[in-house]
């Protein structure tokens, strides 16, 4: 029974793979709408102008995927469950030896600590530069946010719970909400000024919204959208990594939700 099933699966897998390879090797690319994107100037970084200008609404969706994923991670680890008896049993049970938590992590050697802290400080600085210069140079909100989040993760891995670079999770939650709300509300403001959602307005009245040299003044709200995405990605990725590694907070959370349920 099982071997027959494997055979059928193998054959269909092979056919599928062959057809994908065949159609990929026959690929002809039509430049299409790219020509429009390349001949109309918004800001020097054309990728950024596609992300935050032409297809800004996709980026909004992408932000929301991250927001939802972080919310769902919180739910997985016991926030607002209707019934948390299963999780309670699981986390009250004694640990086996091979299970590593942040609490019982131990400490790395001085060499790693010596290198990790300056490296993470530099990464934070680089991340901030990447976010702020996203509209001129390669990079943008997502890349910068990911850099800062990885600096945090590096520091947490090296120092355990005594990490010098540490964000409180409530602070991160608020940071993420602020990032996402800024993006959503800037779009609404654009709707009232330009008539379309996520319209790139460059000035309110006579006041330029992004004071800059003449070539970049067309950026309008794009640098602010960059900052919003940066905040959100930094907060989202740090929260996700933090949830996957830090059990103490989860147990606290479960106890707290127990109080709410028993009230």
């Amino acid at each position, binding site marked *: 029974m099982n071997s027959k099933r494997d055979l059928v699966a193998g054959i269909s897998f092979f056919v599928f793979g062959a057809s994908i390879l065949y159609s990929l090797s026959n690929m*002809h690319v039509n430049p299409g709408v790219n020509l429009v994107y390349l001949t109309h100037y918004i800001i020097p970084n054309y990728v950024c102008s596609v992300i935050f200008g032409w297809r800004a609404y996709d980026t909004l969706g992408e932000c929301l995927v991250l927001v939802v994923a972080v919310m769902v991670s919180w739910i997985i680890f016991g926030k*607002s469950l209707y019934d948390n008896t299963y999780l309670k049993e699981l986390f009250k049970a004694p640990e086996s030896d091979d299970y590593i938590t942040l609490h019982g992590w131990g400490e790395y050697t001085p060499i790693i600590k010596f290198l990790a802290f300056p490296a993470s400080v530099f990464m934070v600085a680089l991340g901030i530069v990447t976010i702020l210069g996203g509209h001129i140079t390669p990079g943008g909100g997502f890349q910068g946010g990911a850099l800062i989040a990885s600096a945090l993760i590096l520091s947490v891995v090296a120092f355990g719970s005594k990490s010098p670079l540490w964000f409180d999770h409530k602070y991160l939650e608020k940071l993420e909400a602020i990032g996402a709300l800024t993006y959503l509300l800037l779009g*609404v403001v654009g709707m009232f000024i330009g008539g379309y959602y996520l319209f790139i307005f460059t000035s309110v009245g006579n006041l330029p919204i992004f004071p800059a040299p003449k070539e970049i003044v067309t950026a309008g709200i794009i640098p602010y959208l960059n900052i919003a995405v940066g905040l959100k990605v930094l907060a989202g990725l740090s929260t996700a990594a933090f949830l996957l590694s830090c059990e103490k907070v989860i147990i606290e959370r479960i106890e707290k939700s127990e109080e709410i349920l028993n009230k």
Partner: protein
Amino acid sequence: MNYLPMIIIFPLIMAIIMNLLHGKENIVKYLTFLIAIILIILPFIGQYGYYYFGGFGVIDGWVSGIAYYYNPLKQVVLVVLAIIASLVLITGMGEKLKNNMFVTLSLMGFASVAAMVLADDLFNFYVFFEIISIVQVGLLFLSGTEEAYKSGLRYMIMGNIAASLMLLGIAFLLASTGTLNITDMKNYILSDNPMIFGGLLLLVVGLAYGSGLPPFHNVKVDLYARSKGFISAILQTYSKFILVGFMLIILKLFNGLSYFSGTHAVLLALGVLAMVFGVVMALLQSDYKKLLSYHAISQAGYVATGLALGTPLGIVAGIFHAINHVIYKSALFLGAYIVSHKKGSDLHKLGGLLPIMPSVAFMVLCAKLAISGVPPFNGFQSKWMLAQAAMQVNMPEIAIIMIIVSIGTFVSMMKAFYLIYLKPVDEETIKEYQSRGVPKLAVFSLFILTSLCIILGIYPEIVTKYLFSYANELGVSYCLK
């Protein structure tokens, strides 16, 4: 000014605010009632026609930005979605825990399904497709049992495969046409090309996953059956309207092209298989929620078959059936939720509930007659239209399968009704029933849904008259020899 994007943006903003209100139960409760009322108004604030985000309209003959397309058909779908979403939100506030994450995730789901129905851009459609798949597992995890975690993981693994393959299909279409806008893309896919064909087939994988057609019906059934009752109601509403939105896109792109006929057959086969699998598996179940979930798959098969016929009448019948289906199936899931307050959902342990709650039993009976296609309920109207559409293209075998599946539905529904409400039980169980209350808000929602069933069954024109114009635009009339 056109306020069309507010249909999506308002629920999203409220969702993020709701996320911050963890633990403040009173505010959550009243804000949720307010949102539930506003949701129903939302579909009426947009204007018909194309909407270009950021004002990036047609430049050099290409639609440069992301576009939405709004018309009466989509409006009807959104109104029904809003009604069900707000009824489910109201029902959720009857729980002991006023759960802010439930409200957040339901609003996110509402927004992304609305975005998928409105979307005129393939990549934007994909982004919201991913949001809805995470939202669905999030809603599932809220029940917090071990089975929920297991089936959530299974659903996500399948979902990731299907979504990646669907993105590969979108990449194929993008490479050969050079655009992501659906209206533009239609002009560039007239020629037969292996890449476009491959792209179409990979899109069908995403369709099967998003709407729970085979081979993805198992994970979808687990998703419905492991959630709480009122959450299953909204989950199945999401997947029906994902199916409608996705089929509208596929029909808009490919309907009438010469190389579409092969895929056409695949879609019809998927629909018929879903119908038959769903009802056969439902007959075997002993868990009430699982039985209802398999019926949800079976009815999705009806919708897919109707839409896949590709004729104007078929499209109208499919969408009308989707609307009817979400109404009566939500009523049934709410009935299961009320029953689970009394005593679980295992059919062999239940019984004798009729004297305890006669009005609920009557309303559930109405919904059960509607799902099995008995006049004068709404299920009859749409199934009749579906059979008519199948006869019109000279495929009587599909009409016959539909009728047989209807009979199967009737049998298993009546079996469940007997086992829950009529089967005699001993004194102790009745005392146990009487000691437990009935969620009032759920009964209220159930009442509204049942009356919608009867109204749509007597006056189907109030929905169908809005569907015909766009269906005539998409559909292609043909007849098999």
